[in-house]
């Protein structure tokens, strides 16, 4: 109370102070502590410091600082954010929310300051390799520890307050500010990509890398203007228009969209440089894998953690059939054939291996099946690596000298990523077609039934073993597409090309994109492999590749908490995962059971019990 009387000044500051007493301090301190832990953890991973050399805006801002200090901004925003409950007015945002954001930011910044101070006091470099002077210098902005200690608190408090203050802005202004910030960061981060796509753009960047400040401002202003003039609204409107379409109108729109995107995909690699082509080829290969796994996991609900096995079988079969260096023990008569011949054999082989692995595994359910497939994934790789089959697959030396895929008119080879991309595009089209057809067929429905409830599916006359085995085999064949192309692309394959990490990344693509949804899978592969990078392939954010797994993990956790249905949700999956909310909404809208009203059950009152049963 004394504090309040002391600082009574203008009416506004009075309100702020009173607001400050209304704040839930315990909660703020707790959130701040979590933020502090996050910041310290991130600093100690070494990522921000490692990325310091990558300049975003010459010479002020490096990717290192962005990769660390986005955190207080977001936390500040979310502290002031609240869930609006149905039927309740949202409380008006006021200066006290900004105070809250600032407090949380300051507590978080204090964590960093503590780290700066402790680095010179204690030495625990042994477990924590990044507990060193260069981290300290990075966090102190190279200005000495005492400056750093103050600066961290101030900066984080400022960012937290700024994040919170976004809520105070009118909607339109807020969107404009956010898009301007994002645009500047994106243009700066994607420097090499943008220059590769359109060389003339290089005037934006300084010679040593990074946006030239003047142009950074221009980009921000351009994005600001675009949003303020309603550009974003129009896109949003077009999208919601599209989503409400049904029947033939939708079919027409879909056809137009598909034709346009295919055209775009054919034209883009012609005008871009090698880096982008390579990137697209890698995205395509992982897309092929993800589409296959989507049938197994997304449609049939079989959690296969060893999917890389089929990729490996595809890759090795093609390699063995085409390369002169395939290993000495193959018999004389064993043929060497052109790529397309090998490809056909590969499909057959993958199908057989799928059957062979699937037959014993498929009778298991859920977790057991996941563990066993995980094992099989490793077994296949270790077989290729083993001394026992060394004469056939050259063990760790792998199979080299795999010739390019020769189609007479043109060749598909690794040094020409564009050709690889076109081949992948053809296969992706095939895989998409297969997924799309099967999903709407007798078999697809049986897969869904098995995913929903295996014992009931069985009782409804579905031979679940056969049906699941079919999913396994189709998945295996689709994976071998990717394996075959991969062989021709890289020209040499090794057991280490097929680590378990590949399985995991494919699964993450499927989950992050949105299980059981083809568009989701495409988005997932672009985001994960294209932007972050595949297990060995660099993505657009090549700088992050060392910390890829950290980011994958964080992304996965965030997704599971906030958006379990994936980036592009499938209506069905979404329902499955938000069933309670869905029923709740339906109940609030009073819409659930209108069919009974036109019958003789208007007064029967079965609506509420039915719902209560479903929602509880």
């Amino acid at each position: 109370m004394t504090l309040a009387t002391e600082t009574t000044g203008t009416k506004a500051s009075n309100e702020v102070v009173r607001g400050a007493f209304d704040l839930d301090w315990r909660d703020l301190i707790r959130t701040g502590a979590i933020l502090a832990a996050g910041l310290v953890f991130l600093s100690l991973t070494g990522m921000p410091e490692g990325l310091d050399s990558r300049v975003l805006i010459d010479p002020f801002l490096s990717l290192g600082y962005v990769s660390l200090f986005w955190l207080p901004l977001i936390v500040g925003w979310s502290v002031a954010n609240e869930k609006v409950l149905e039927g309740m007015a949202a409380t008006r945002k006021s200066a006290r929310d900004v105070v809250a954001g600032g407090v949380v930011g300051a507590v978080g910044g204090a964590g960093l300051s503590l780290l700066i101070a402790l680095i010179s006091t204690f030495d625990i470099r042994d477990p924590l390799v990044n507990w060193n002077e260069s981290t300290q210098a990075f966090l102190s902005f190279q200005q000495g520890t005492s400056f750093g200690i103050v600066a961290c608190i101030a900066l984080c408090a400022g960012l937290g307050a700024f994040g919170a203050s976004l809520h105070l802005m009118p909607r339109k202004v807020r969107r404009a500010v956010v898009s301007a910030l994002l645009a500047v960061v994106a243009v700066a981060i994607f420097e090499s990509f943008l220059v590769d796509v359109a060389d003339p753009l290089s005037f934006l960047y300084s010679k040593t890398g990074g946006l030239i400040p003047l142009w950074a401002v221009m980009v921000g202003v351009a994005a600001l203007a675009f949003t303020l003039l309603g550009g974003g609204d129009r896109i949003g409107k077009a999208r919601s228009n599209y989503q409400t379409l049904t029947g033939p109108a939708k079919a027409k729109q879909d056809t137009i969209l598909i034709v346009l995107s295919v055209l775009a995909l054919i034209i883009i690699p012609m005008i871009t440089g090698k880096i982008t082509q390579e990137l697209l080829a890698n995205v395509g290969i992982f897309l092929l894998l993800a589409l296959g796994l989507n049938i197994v996991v997304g449609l049939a609900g079989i959690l296969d953690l060893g999917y890389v096995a089929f990729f490996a079988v595809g890759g090795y079969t093609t390699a063995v059939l085409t390369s002169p260096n395939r290993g000495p023990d193959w018999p004389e008569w064993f043929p060497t054939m052109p790529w397309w011949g090998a490809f056909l054999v590969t499909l057959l082989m993958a199908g057989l291996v799928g059957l062979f692995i699937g037959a014993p595994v498929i009778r298991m359910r859920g977790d057991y099946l996941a563990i066993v497939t995980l094992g099989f994934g490793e077994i296949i790789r270790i077989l290729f690596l083993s001394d026992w089959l060394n004469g056939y697959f050259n063990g760790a030396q792998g199979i080299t000298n795999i010739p390019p895929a020769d189609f007479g008119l043109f060749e598909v080879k690794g040094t020409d990523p564009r050709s690889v991309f076109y081949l992948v595009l053809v296969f992706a089209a095939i895989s998409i077609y297969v997924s799309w057809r099967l999903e709407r067929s007798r078999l697809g429905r049986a897969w869904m039934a098995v995913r929903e409830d295996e014992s009931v599916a069985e009782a409804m006359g579905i031979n679940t073993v056969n049906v699941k085995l079919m999913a396994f085999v189709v998945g295996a064949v689709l994976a071998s597409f990717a394996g075959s192309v991969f062989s021709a692309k890289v020209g040499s394959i090794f057991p280490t090309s097929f680590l378990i990490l590949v399985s995991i990344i494919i699964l993450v693509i499927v989950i992050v994109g949105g299980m059981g949804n083809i568009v989701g899978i495409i988005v997932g592969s672009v985001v994960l492999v294209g932007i972050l990078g595949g297990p060995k392939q660099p993505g657009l954010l090549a700088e992050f590749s060392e910390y890829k797994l950290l980011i994958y993990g964080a992304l996965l956790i965030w997704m599971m908490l906030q958006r379990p249905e994936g980036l592009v949700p499938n209506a069905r999956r979404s329902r499955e995962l938000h069933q309670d909310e869905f029923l709740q909404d339906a109940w609030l809208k009073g819409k659930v059971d209108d069919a009974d009203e036109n019958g003789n059950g208007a007064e029967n009152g079965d609506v509420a019990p039915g719902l209560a049963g479903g929602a509880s």
Partner: protein
Amino acid sequence: MSHLLEIDSLSVTFGGLHALKDLDFHVDEGEIVGVIGPNGAGKTTFFNMISGMVTPTSGDIRFEGESLVGFDPNQVTQRGIARTFQNVRLFANMTILENVMVSQHCRTKQGIWGSLLNTSGFRKEEQEIREHAEKVLGFFGSRLVGFRLEQPASVLSYANRRRLEIARAMATSPKLILLDEPVAGMNPKESVELTELIGKLRSEWGFTIVLIEHDMNVVRDVSDRVVCLDHGETLAQGSFEEVSNDPAVIEAYLGRPLEKKA
């Protein structure tokens, strides 16, 4: 004449628990048989065993003269026995239409190639599956058709979920349908209506029916014959009047006369 379904001294044990003991049972074609008994009597286990979800410890089940012992549930359904579940188990995230379409799986045969090449055979079969599904759903009036077709089963009210369960069983084109407490959770009005429909299942669709039910009005109204189970054994068998007046049955239901509710 041999019976449609014939069960000979059949036993099921779970660990030490005798869920069914030396049970003899038969159904003739075109019959509606009611199975009653107190909670835990083994009624659901009895159905699970016929439909192949539980393997009997000893004894024999014959359907149209063929032994079903050791069959997978899907083989039993293929032979012509369909069932519903006491604790409604729909494919909650599939649409109502898909729920009924998918249960025609064992009566159809198009595989991967048909659907990939979109052959005329495939299109024709899809068309037939859909028509049959709509016909089956139409059996329940307007409740499960129209805009409902494309809705997920999870939005249905409890009573409609029960109806969809029956529709799903009907769609497998069975000879014998096992209904496990079809009116549980329905109000009296709906019970009466469904009772009528059960009668029609026989008269219009030609199904033979065995139903488990706790609602004695329903059992009295539809059953030709009633079997009362208790502790896994047949307590009494015969017409509804005979069984409901049987002292042992009244005893099993804690001395409550069964007509009290009527």
